[in-house]
């Protein structure tokens, strides 16, 4: 029996979908059998980031309405050997096209076949959010150091704590080192203390995330980038490893290193 984890944030644009794709991919790289479920019905993105957009034949609505069997709608990511799968959202329907009971049944089916089921939650706290958390065993809360995202995260924690899921685990995403060091935004300790939930990991802002997503490749595939490292660490912590937090401080390059050292 696998584990269903919902990735949520409240606020939009903080990186739920990117995090879902990358954590899922990182788990698949660790030889776990993973199914990603896109719950952003009507505004789906997860398929685009994974580069599977044109492979969608059936979607989650086709499954819950009984037009097709679950396995017919699931798309296999060819880059991995039977490790990573996607259940895509419908694009021409809305969040009310599915309800909590249907979700519980659907995710229950998936948990039989997959070790990890990652649910990509839509922004907001309406039906789409309710559906996403209905069947989850655990929750990952994504926020950025921005105060607006933290406010929404706080609201989400309150909502999730009222369910059987319990407290979510926190990812602080899109951290800009310089701003955090200058004290322009709340630092990692402050955010974690303020929200008082367990910190699962941090991901630094990295242009490569957008660059590789645009090509349909999750950034985590290439370990040389900082964001990739952040997501790999998160996946390892999910699997129970103890991994130290990445350092915020940039190593000061000496004058001579700057002059003669190689780039990076």
């Amino acid at each position, binding site marked *: 029996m696998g584990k269903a984890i919902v990735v949520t944030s409240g606020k939009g644009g903080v990186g739920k979908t990117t995090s879902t794709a990358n954590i899922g991919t990182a788990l698949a790289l660790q030889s776990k059998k993973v199914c990603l479920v896109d719950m952003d019905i*009507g*505004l*789906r993105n997860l398929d685009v980031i994974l580069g599977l957009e*044109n*492979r*969608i*034949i059936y979607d989650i609505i086709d499954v819950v309405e009984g037009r097709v069997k679950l396995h017919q709608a699931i798309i296999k990511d060819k880059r991995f050997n039977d490790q990573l799968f996607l259940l895509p959202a419908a694009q*021409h329907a809305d969040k009310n096209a599915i309800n909590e009971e249907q979700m519980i049944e659907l995710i229950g089916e998936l948990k039989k076949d997959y070790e990890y089921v990652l649910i990509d939650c839509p922004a907001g706290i309406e039906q789409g959010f309710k559906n996403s958390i209905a069947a989850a065993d655990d929750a990952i809360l994504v926020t950025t150091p921005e105060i607006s995202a933290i406010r929404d995260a706080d609201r989400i924690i309150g909502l999730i704590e009222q369910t059987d899921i319990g407290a979510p685990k926190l990812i602080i995403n899109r951290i800009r080192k310089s701003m955090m060091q200058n004290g322009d935004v709340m630092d990692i300790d402050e955010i974690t203390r303020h929200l008082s939930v367990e910190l699962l990991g941090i991901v630094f802002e990295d242009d490569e995330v957008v660059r590789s997503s645009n*090509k349909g490749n999750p950034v985590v595939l290439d370990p040389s980038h900082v964001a990739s490292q952040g997501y790999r660490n998160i996946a390892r912590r999910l699997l129970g490893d103890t991994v130290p937090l990445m350092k915020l401080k940039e190593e000061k390059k000496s004058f001579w290193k700057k002059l003669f050292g190689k780039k990076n």
Partner: protein
Amino acid sequence: MNKAVTLKGRKEGFQLILDASASIDSILEEIKELKVQLKNDTQTGHELTFFVKSGIRKLSSDEKKQIEEIIEDDHFTISSFQSEVILIDEAIKLHKASRPKLEVRTVRSGQILDIEGDLLLIGEVHPGGTVRATGSIFVIGELKGIAHAGFNGNENAIVLANFRHNAQVRIGGNVHVVEKTENSSEQSDELKFVYVNDLHIIEVSPLHNLKTIRPEIGKHSGGLF
């Protein structure tokens, strides 16, 4: 004064031509008079058929019934009503049935363009957008989403486009994924079409094979090719 009803003899029978500008009451009145006159003029036992032509008037079924009641008896029958005008509803139906249907627009993500018959789309199908037709689909522009031809199961339908982007083509129940990799050298502008072959396998072929593979398509689509 113009007569509201004119009687004309034709090879096929008698024509009752109704003046479109006359009131229905005066028409009914004149038909009654005409009937009496005709009854007197023709020998009994002689059968007559009438065509009613209402010109640019659209007779309601009530009005038709009234005329029938006056004319029809043992010897007189009305074979048909003819009008030079039709209702807009019927016109739209006729228009829809004429093929192919021309659409000039962009089909965006989440939108579905559903067409009865063949579709000629001038514009783009964006990723996540769907065009569906019960007949064939011809795209002038870029196809980046889903094109589903023969939506109700017609495997003779085709999809014609320049396949330069990632896309998906469905014909009947068959699915073909068009995959473009960054370094694929064949970035040609050549038009291609997707069809289902004799073995029920979906295939892509250059445009010049269309006439051999689907000779009937030209007739179907009103001589598009």
